[in-house]
């Protein structure tokens, strides 16, 4: 028997996951089928950013055929408690609005019916009366005295304000030759996994147990929150995960509130209930990354050496501080100095609430916001001090011999050699790019080069979130720390090996890598190891910190599997030594056999030794309890709770990225061509190069979207504007360039396999690297994401137009934020003004000429109510309209003021209508209007609204013309609409 050891880890073996996924045999949540009798839910959502709910009428909806239950916030409040948040404030964190709505898309009611189609029908029949309130969307403005307050019990929108001081920042600033600063308003974006949320819930009223299947990113930290919200002990909340998940990128942690909603719906309906989120729901209300306003100052020497940083961060968590927020703001706390040796740091962290969807986990989680500010600052230091930007980076990097390196804010960087990484990345490449830049600029073109250095944290410390509390508050709450990971390896009676982990993969390929890691321990072919990764909190091993968030799979979960397999192998070695009459230290595992090293006669098939414990436990040698199943838990001792001085080792591992990009900007179109993109990574030991490359390419593509295309946009009144993939643009194959990926390896001394995380780095480094390249190309100082063509063309046009305001609200007209519809036009009608006037005040005439009208009710001579069906693009719905006539100047002019409300949204506006005799017995009707809409129509039909408004007005006047002069078809109204 050959005693060679094949190391499967480190090889890009084909994934065991792929064949099923490629042939349509995946088992995603909506592929699984349900129990007979399962009902389907649809969720009614708020069209208002901020409004009191006056009443909810469910009678008509509940009476529809196939409808089993209508669940409202009051039902929810009867059976649950608000979800706990990371912040101790008096804001009630309900997963469905109870008395007030605070963002567009907030759940307001659930319809439960025999199928999804009937449930959606029922939503249209639920009648809700709202009293709209002023809304606030801008995080800075939300702190103003006069800003509307979202949660009156909390007293203000500013819900956390902490200052930190590390080292001696004030003297460092006082002594510095220069103070250089950047101000950044980082936009909202999201991971947008291709599969949306899904939940199937069931409630057992006798045992009081909720059994909930959901495509969580990981149900672990949220299990506690959900059990408390559902008012059951943890052992009566069973959360299960389907075998496959269609991507998460952090986002699927946000399915948690829906587990509560659908759980309660199932309890009320008395039957299992299934809900699959649609894309509009997802973009509008699932999970957004935080938008953040940052001012970052550096104390800098004339040579560009930074002695101190001063951070001021205002974090916008949306309408509710939903757990684990405000974690986005604190995840980077230990590494706020990035890759640089900076000993003095001042920091102010504020958390505000605004009328936007709640935020949560999104790939990069706090990193994009921090590194955009930090690496823009590095570039600005170079520009303002007339230094080479790469030299400024080099001058400040942590020295290679300094690891493990304790940062000013408390992180312990495990390993690294930043200088080697940077020099290897630029060698032979940068010179060529500089030549291209020189040639392009000589030809009058806009070509730029950008850099970014980033430390990529992974394996989060549970305790970092508590840095938001003061030391005093932390003492009261009890210490939190660590990063428990777990894996189970088991052997069956024929000696085959199975692995189970609590990592809930979403497509990364964990099953393949775990098979490689465990196969290496037992000397088996990796294909012989079977890995199961779907999860059931009712019977599988897990802990609160389990999961694969914070890029912790390779470092923590694979490490735990390695430990469990090693423990089992060591016990098998004792059995083998006993059986083969050899020393335990001499036992080897390879090629499917167990053998005594150096003695080819003493060899035995692996399965024989492995199965012995099942068949003849009496033969187990002393000291071996069993070899059937081994569950390892692992948490690194380095992850301690925050210190009294607020120092926090927020993550166990710290990878390094150095990116270099060159771009060319077309100043007239605002189009950016990425000429070259190089990304250098040090993620410690690499277990599967193909998957590491996949993580880097995928992260890069998402970062490309964040840089150029993606923003979850809101209007000033809180209307959500990007509810489709035609509005929230993701990069496609035609926009995503190939990139060059480089590696060095400095293994982590703190993880079982020497690995570090690699899943999020490019989401942190790429947006700012590209922004630096664009800044270099255009000579621009202030760069705001996303770098849309309009924004870039404005930047290219000149400095006076190149200053986007620091916050969205200040510059709404520059983008799609301004949804006011304005228009004017005229129409000729073949009847005298007096006749037209009479028609416009007549209920029956109005009913017959208003497009889609089902009936008009006259409340007074000048006040009408109507039921209308209107279609805007893909959205057709029924609305209640109210119209008032004012400023009457009979029969020449009147002002019409109207409002619309329906399940699909709201609208309001006014217009002045003038009637002028045309000299030929007819009338020239002139009109000018201004209107605004909100709700679903704004989110998904935004670009169609102008056209739709014109078409509806056109239909109105055409009908009026027909009615006024039915015998004269030649006098049909001619309509001229044009944009104001």
């Amino acid at each position, binding site marked *: 028997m050959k005693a060679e050891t094949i190391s499967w880890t480190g090889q*890009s073996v*084909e*994934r065991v*996951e*792929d*064949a*099923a*996924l*490629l*042939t*349509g*045999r*995946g088992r*995603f949540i*909506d*592929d699984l089928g349900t129990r007979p009798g399962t009902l389907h839910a649809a969720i009614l959502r708020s069209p208002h950013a901020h409004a009191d709910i006056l009443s909810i009428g469910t009678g008509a909806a509940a009476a529809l055929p196939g409808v089993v239950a209508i669940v409202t916030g009051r039902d929810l409040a009867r059976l649950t408690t608000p979800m706990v948040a990371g912040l101790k404030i008096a804001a009630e964190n309900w997963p469905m609005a109870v008395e007030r709505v605070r963002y567009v898309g907030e759940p307001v009611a659930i319809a439960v019916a025999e199928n*999804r*189609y009937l449930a959606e029908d029922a939503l249209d029949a639920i009648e809700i009366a709202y009293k709209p309130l002023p809304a606030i969307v801008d995080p800075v403005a939300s702190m103003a005295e006069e800003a509307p307050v979202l949660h009156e019990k909390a007293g203000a929108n500013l819900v956390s304000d902490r200052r930190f001081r590390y080292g001696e920042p004030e003297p460092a600033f006082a002594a510095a030759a220069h103070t250089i600063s950047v101000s950044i308003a980082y936009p909202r974006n999201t*991971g*947008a*996994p*291709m*599969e*949306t949320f899904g939940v199937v819930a069931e409630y057992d009223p006798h045992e009081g147990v909720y059994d909930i299947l959901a495509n969580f990113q990981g149900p672990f930290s949220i299990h506690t929150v959900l059990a408390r919200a559902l008012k059951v002990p943890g052992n009566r909340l069973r959360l299960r995960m389907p075998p*496959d*998940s*269609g*991507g998460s*990128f952090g986002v699927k942690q946000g399915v948690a509130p829906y587990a509560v909603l659908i759980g309660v719906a199932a309890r009320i309906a008395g039957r299992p209930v299934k809900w699959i989120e*649609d*894309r509009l729901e997802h973009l509008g209300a699932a999970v957004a990354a935080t938008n953040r306003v940052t001012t970052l100052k550096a104390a800098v020497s004339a040579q560009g050496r930074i002695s101190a940083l001063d951070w001021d961060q205002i974090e916008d968590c949306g309408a509710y501080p939903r757990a684990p927020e405000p974690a986005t703001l604190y995840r980077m706390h230990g590494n706020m100095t990035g890759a640089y040796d900076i000993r003095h740091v001042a920091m102010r962290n504020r958390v505000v609430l605004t009328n936007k969807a709640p935020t949560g986990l999104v790939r990069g989680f706090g990193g994009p916001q921090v590194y955009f500010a930090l690496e823009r600052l590095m570039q600005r230091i170079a520009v303002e001090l007339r230094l080479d930007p790469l030299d400024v980076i080099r001058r400040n990097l942590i020295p290679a011999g300094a690891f493990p390196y304790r940062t000013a804010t408390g992180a312990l960087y495990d390993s690294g050699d930043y200088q080697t990484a940077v020099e290897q990345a630029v060698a032979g490449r940068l010179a060529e790019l500089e030549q291209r830049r020189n040639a392009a600029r000589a030809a009058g073109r806009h070509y730029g080069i950008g850099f970014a250095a980033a430390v990529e944290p992974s394996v989060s410390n549970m305790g970092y979130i508590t840095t938001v509390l003061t030391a005093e508050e932390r003492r009261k709450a009890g210490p939190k720390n660590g990063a428990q990971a777990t894996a189970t390896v088991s052997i069956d009676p024929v000696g085959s090996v199975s692995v189970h982990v609590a990592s809930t993969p*979403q*497509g*990364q*390929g964990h099953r393949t890598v775990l098979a490689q890691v465990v196969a290496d321990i037992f000397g088996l072919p990796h294909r012989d190891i079977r890995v199961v990764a779907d999860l059931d909190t009712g019977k599988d091993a897990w802990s609160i910190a389990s999961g694969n968030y914070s890029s912790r799979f390779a470092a923590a979960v694979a490490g735990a599997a390695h430990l469990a397999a090693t423990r089992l192998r060591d016990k098998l070695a004792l059995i083998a030594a006993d059986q083969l009459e050899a020393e335990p230290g001499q036992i080897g595992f390879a090629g499917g056999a167990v053998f005594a090293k150096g003695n080819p006669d003493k060899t035995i098939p692996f399965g024989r030794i492995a199965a012995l414990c099942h068949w003849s436990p009496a033969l187990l040698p002393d000291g071996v309890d069993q070899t059937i199943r081994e569950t390892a838990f692992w948490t690194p001792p380095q992850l301690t709770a925050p210190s009294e001085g607020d120092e926090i080792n927020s993550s166990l591992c710290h990878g390094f990225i150095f990116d270099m990009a060159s771009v060319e900007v077309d100043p007239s179109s605002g189009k950016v061509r990425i000429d070259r993109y190089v990304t250098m990574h040090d993620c410690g030991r690499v277990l599967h190069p*193909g*998957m590491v*490359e*996949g993580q880097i*390419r*995928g*992260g*890069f*593509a*998402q970062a490309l979207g964040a840089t150029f295309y993606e923003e979850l946009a809101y209007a000033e009144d809180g209307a959500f504007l990007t509810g*489709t*993939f*035609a509005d929230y643009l*993701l990069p*496609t*194959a*035609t926009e*995503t360039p*190939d*990139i060059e990926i480089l590696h060095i390896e400095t293994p982590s001394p703190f993880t079982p396999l020497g690995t570090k995380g690699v899943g999020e780095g490019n989401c942190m480094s790429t947006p700012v690297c590209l922004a630096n390249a664009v800044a270099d190309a255009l000579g621009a100082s202030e760069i705001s994401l996303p770098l849309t063509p309009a924004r870039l063309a404005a930047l290219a046009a000149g400095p006076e137009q190149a200053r986007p305001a620091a916050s969205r609200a200040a510059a709404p007209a520059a983008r799609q934020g301004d949804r006011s519809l304005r228009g004017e036009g005229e129409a000729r009608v073949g009847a005298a003004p007096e006749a037209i006037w009479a028609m416009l005040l007549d209920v029956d005439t109005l009913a017959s000429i208003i497009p889609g009208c089902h009936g008009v009710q006259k409340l007074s001579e000048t006040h009408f109510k109507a039921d209308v069906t209107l279609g805007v693009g*893909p959205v057709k719905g029924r609305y209640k309209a109210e119209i008032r006539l004012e400023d009457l100047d009979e029969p020449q002019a009147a002002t019409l003021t109207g409002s619309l409300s329906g399940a699909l949204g709201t609208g309001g506006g006014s217009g002045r209508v003038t009637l002028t005799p045309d000299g030929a017995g007819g009338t020239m009707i002139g009109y000018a209007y201004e209107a605004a809409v909100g709700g679903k129509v704004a989110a*998904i039909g935004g670009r169609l609204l102008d056209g739709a408004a014109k078409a509806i007005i056109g239909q109105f006047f055409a009908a009026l013309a027909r009615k006024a002069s039915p015998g004269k078809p030649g006098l049909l109204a001619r309509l001229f609409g044009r944009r104001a």
Partner: protein
Amino acid sequence: MPRLSAAHRHRVGFTLNGKPVAVEAEPRLLATDALRHGLGATGTHVGCEHGVCGACTVLIDGAPARACLTLAVQLEGREVTTVEGLAPAQDRLSVLQAAFRRHHALQCGFCTAGILISLEAFLREQPEPSEQALREVVGGHLCRCTGYTPIIAAAREAAALLRQASQSTAAEPLDV
């Protein structure tokens, strides 16, 4: 054109991956729901329900179509191919599918079915595609995991293998 009552279900018969099938459908039932929940062909996925993401792409009479923008009743009498119909046998992969596996051209696999369908149709029409042409075809789909480059690499390799196969004298279908 037959008029269908909105209040009733209608029998819709068509060919799915070479076999005759029938499903009872209200006129408003989407083809995606009919395929997935009516017939159990869950390989076709639904990512946006407004025709942008491409996850639901199927072949209808050989041409790629967004099943989420198609009504079930529109499938009457048609030949429909879904991802379940691409492999030559249950335990094998098509040339394109195998190339996807070799190149790590999928991660979560949710969007993959639609991309395979579009490429299958395109490579039949254009056996010698340029990289740009492949990027345009895959550009009709959203993938959030891979960054697309491995998908393009897999498609190029599959195209080359399919060309070799069609040039070789053996008329057997090439599969892995």
